[in-house]
């Protein structure tokens, strides 16, 4: 038990910082993604729905960084840059749309736009 605590607390710090395995990061990323997905489905507020998509982007970013770390190259990290770019573009466009929709109906309820068919 003591050795486990010492190990977890990194008492031998300069020697080895245990990264864990890819498994841990993929599971963390999957949990974040699923929470974002649930939020996107359940929440009715347009802004919170877009925040939930950002959560899913974030989960993808963690998975990409973990792959990059465990595959010995920087490609995953560079792809996080592109995820970041897409997130910024999406935030700019989607939020402009949200403001537009809000001025039209004075509500952020996604259900207020039911009549949009097609």
């Amino acid at each position, binding site marked *: 038990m003591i050795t486990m605590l010492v190990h977890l607390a*990194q008492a031998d710090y300069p020697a080895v910082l245990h990264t864990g395995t890819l*498994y841990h990061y993929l599971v963390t990323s999957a949990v974040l993604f699923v929470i974002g997905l649930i939020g996107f489905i359940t929440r009715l507020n347009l802004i919170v729905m877009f925040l939930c998509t950002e959560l899913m982007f974030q989960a993808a970013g963690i998975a990409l960084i973990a792959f990059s770390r465990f595959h010995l190259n920087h490609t995953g*990290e560079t792809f996080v840059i592109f995820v*970041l770019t897409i997130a910024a573009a999406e935030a700019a466009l989607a939020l402009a749309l949200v403001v537009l929709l809000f001025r039209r109906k004075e509500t952020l309820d996604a259900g207020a736009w039911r009549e949009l068919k097609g």
Partner: protein
Amino acid sequence: MSDLVQPILLYIGCALGALGVIIAMPRRGANPQVIGGVLVGAALGAIFLAMGLGVGGSAGLDRLPNINFYVFSFIAIGAALRVVTHPRPVYAALYFILTILASCGLYVILAAEFMAFALVIVYAGAILITYLFVIMLATEAPTEEEAESQPDYDRYSREPIGAAVAGFVLLATLTTLFARGAATLESPAPANVAVKQTQFRPAVEASADDGRRAEGPILLLSLTSDRAVNGRVHLVLGGKPIDLDEETLESGLPVSLAAGENSIGIPLTGVNADQGRGADAWFVAEPLGDSVLAAKLPGRIESALREARDPSDPAKPLVRDDEEVVSIDVARREAVLTTVLDSPQGNNSSQLGTNRTITLPAEFQIDNVEGVAFTLLDEHPGAIEIAGVILLMAMLGAVVLARKKVEMDDAAKLAAQQRHLVVEVGPIVGRDQISGGSIHSASGGAKTHTQSGATQGGLA
């Protein structure tokens, strides 16, 4: 035993998590969010415990991440849960910043420092501020009598049970698939020295009948590498790391691996066969492309040489003040130095022009920012162009959308009137005429609002 316990724990964790998310979702009536949060926390604990059982195995604790990983994961996931469940969008955005910061911690553990700081600046600094502005712009000001109440769409959630069940079934599937391969994942490599591990398969066999180095069993490492690579072998026996040197390791240090199957024998002195079976070894590769990349940065190498200390005497610098770097051979990790004429010690003319060859310091390598930059510019230049074009188009689109004149719907106008907000009908009609027929509701809005109230009454 753990074969049975691990998947059961995983499924229990997923079920608990789904239950917790359902309980924590905003809904009518009592809303015990604390209970939901505790349940999700317990679920995460169960999942991480199952992961520890799956990964740990015989190699034990060395494959588990250190406590920072758990702390950051819990903060990130807890804050994400608050983003999803908090009834006020401003708080949801602030909790999202917390998720970003915690995942930056994970990035730092994964030796991706540049992306961690870029994420804080871009996400927490720029994107989330945009969100906060929009939340402020697009939230109805509460009237005085209902100052505490939230709009309906923030207080209720749509299909929380179905969504949570679907989401956590997806999570259970994913984690089970990950768990199948977890036992074959590589052992950890030290991240804080920025070296990385390679494809690795340890096959530990202890044999006492090797005649040449007779004293103990021999640890046979079988390493599968997809390319030629240099690196070091680390060995842990009974929880204690063991120093390997050229004497114990037949091929010397650092070990050069060819592409394909390699095997390395390490004699374990003073250890019997049973103890030898408990030994854990891993291979840490030096990043292969580094010497090629470093050759593109001669100035960087020279400044690193100037800062380096002599390995035999840490008090002395590796390059003396009166020396200049003549040439650098990165592939062989050597540099040629020469003494300069007009240095304080250069009065002795016999030392003029003396060349000296030194090896580059072992810790010298491409750092994270340089690695990301090289990958970005060398391998993905087209993607940068596309990303720039996307950003530009998004900016233009946002400007066009923001300049568009929009009229309120009839129903929204009526609702606003009912909330005792001041709706000045006259100017709105005027703006309708200016904006022409570009908006389909404009013609309806231009009619008298008594008529619109009548149609609204008919709809209701």
